[in-house]
């Protein structure tokens, strides 16, 4: 006699209802309002706004720097997670706690601190400028700020997955004659990749929308170091609400397409 196993948390109707109300109030209505407002524009007006050279330059800059920052965090974050999970060393707990600090710190504070450090007269910036490298007020600076702000994502998504892979699996692979690189490629990578992609896309999405920290280090030169969220603020300061929503919609659409493709990629990997 089979009995339906009852779920741990009772009340499917209640929880679903709660979730829908919650999602509706916090996510769907504000996003919907954005689209409704943008819909007041005619199609040609909308196209004119989003194809202005300044908007396109900012679009390229925002997505490229966010992508670069997510890649950097994908590498550094993996190493960090690996070190924290696999090794025991003095100060580990301290570093563990520090990882989340970029989330806790107001982003404006992070931006001002990074600018002070990396400006041509700053503590680090002066050495860079001796080498002929400008960090603050260039896309490199923007990338730096985004890397800082999105650091926790990859580390935190990889940690539990790494902790779940028993060391014996690696040892078994080694006993069967796999070289270290082969162990990484055939044993660890497939297990880590889905979580890594999640961390990567979170960092990427967060980076695209980041405003507070970037604004101080970017220099905000039109066509060169202007990010998309700043253009939205510029439009708002001209009381051009429709222009601002048009750019907002553009950002949402591009982000959505990119995140969706990452999700699809994840499913492909899961099947393989």
């Amino acid at each position, binding site marked *: 006699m089979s009995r339906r196993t009852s779920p741990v948390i009772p009340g499917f109707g209640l929880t679903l209802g709660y979730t829908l109300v919650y999602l509706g109030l916090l996510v769907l*209505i504000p996003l919907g309002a954005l689209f409704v407002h943008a819909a007041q524009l005619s199609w040609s007006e909308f196209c004119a706004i989003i194809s202005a050279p300044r908007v396109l330059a900012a679009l390229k800059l925002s997505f490229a720097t966010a992508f670069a920052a997510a890649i950097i965090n994908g590498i550094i974050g993996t190493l960090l997670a690996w070190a924290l999970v696999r090794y025991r060393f003095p100060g580990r707990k301290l570093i563990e706690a520090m990882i989340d600090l970029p989330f806790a710190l107001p982003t404006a504070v992070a931006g001002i601190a990074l*600018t*002070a450090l990396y*400006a041509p007269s700053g503590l680090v910036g002066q050495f860079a400028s001796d080498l002929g490298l400008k960090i603050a007020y260039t896309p490199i600076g923007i990338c730096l700020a985004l890397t800082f702000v999105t650091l926790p994502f990859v580390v935190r998504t990889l940690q539990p997955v790494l902790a779940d892979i028993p060391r014996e699996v690696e040892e078994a692979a080694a006993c069967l004659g796999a070289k270290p690189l082969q162990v990484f490629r055939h044993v660890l990578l497939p297990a880590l990749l889905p979580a890594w992609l999640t961390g990567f896309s979170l960092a990427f999405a967060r980076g695209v929308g980041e405003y507070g920290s970037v*604004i101080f280090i970017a220099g*905000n030169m*039109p066509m060169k170091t202007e990010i998309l969220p700043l253009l939205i603020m*510029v439009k708002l300061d*001209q*009381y051009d609400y429709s222009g601002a929503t048009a750019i907002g919609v553009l950002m949402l659409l591009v982000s959505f397409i990119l995140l969706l493709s990452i999700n699809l990629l994840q499913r492909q990997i899961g099947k393989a």
Partner: protein
Amino acid sequence: MSIRRFALAALAGALLAGPAAAQTLLNVSYDPTRELYSEFNAAFNKHWQAQGNDAVTIQQSHGGSGKQARAVIDGLRADVVTLALAGDIDELYKLGKLIPENWQERLPQASTPYTSTIVFLVRKGNPKGIEDWDDLVKPGVEVITPNPKTSGGARWNFLAAWAYAQQKFGSEAKAQEFVAKLYQNVPVLDTGARGSTITFVNNQIGDVLLAWENEAFLALKEEGGNNFEIVAPSLSILAEPPVAVVDKNVDKKGTREVAEAYLDYLYSEEGQRIAAQNFYRPRNPAVAAEFAEQFPALKLLTIDQDFGGWQAAQPKFFNDGGVFDRIYQAQ
């Protein structure tokens, strides 16, 4: 949008239903007036109580002028607004219908009880020898000013440079060339005046900061005058930050009387003196004479006479496709 209206109405209803406590006044202002209004609020409260009224709680809110105006339009219940430019208060009428169209005629001097101007802050000893606007377009001089698209103060900076060039060269085309050259010397466009001050003072970027006169004096006062000095150009613009009672809000809250008294008091001798002590140029001739030594005498143009008011200047220079956009697109 109607849902938001409804939510705001519900919130407002809840607030109104509360017991009528002591009156509170919310003054929504722009960034550099923080010190001015903390001093003025205390003085006004004393004056208000001396006239036999109950003490009034005055709250201040500061931020970028445009952002503050938008907050009021979107439902922040300000009793009075004291912003950086008339253009921002105009939007309270245009977008919010919170005040009448002729708001600027309701108080003396086009509703600007104090004024300021744009001056240069340079590093001690003035190593680049910066004396006037001409020196800002020289190669190798780095100029720090915020982005006029996002900062009210930066719009005054831009117009001051423009006014100088137009007087000197006599044509708009030449003036545009001049400001384009000037902005080529700008390495960073911060979003607000405070951001530019941080860039110049703390991060040590640039040779000259275009600043509100009151901000420049304040920066000097705070750091003791060891690292910077003020240079007054031969010609600048009279920056007129206006004030207004927000009719719709005071009528709802029943605070019209105290709000109007608050703004009137800015024109009183004491109010004018407090403004002057905080490095704003007073309107009252007697008080102005008292502080004459503090403010360098320079030729000042006005937005209304020389630029046809904000209604004309904003779209011509700063809206999308305006002069400021063109000098960057030409590069």
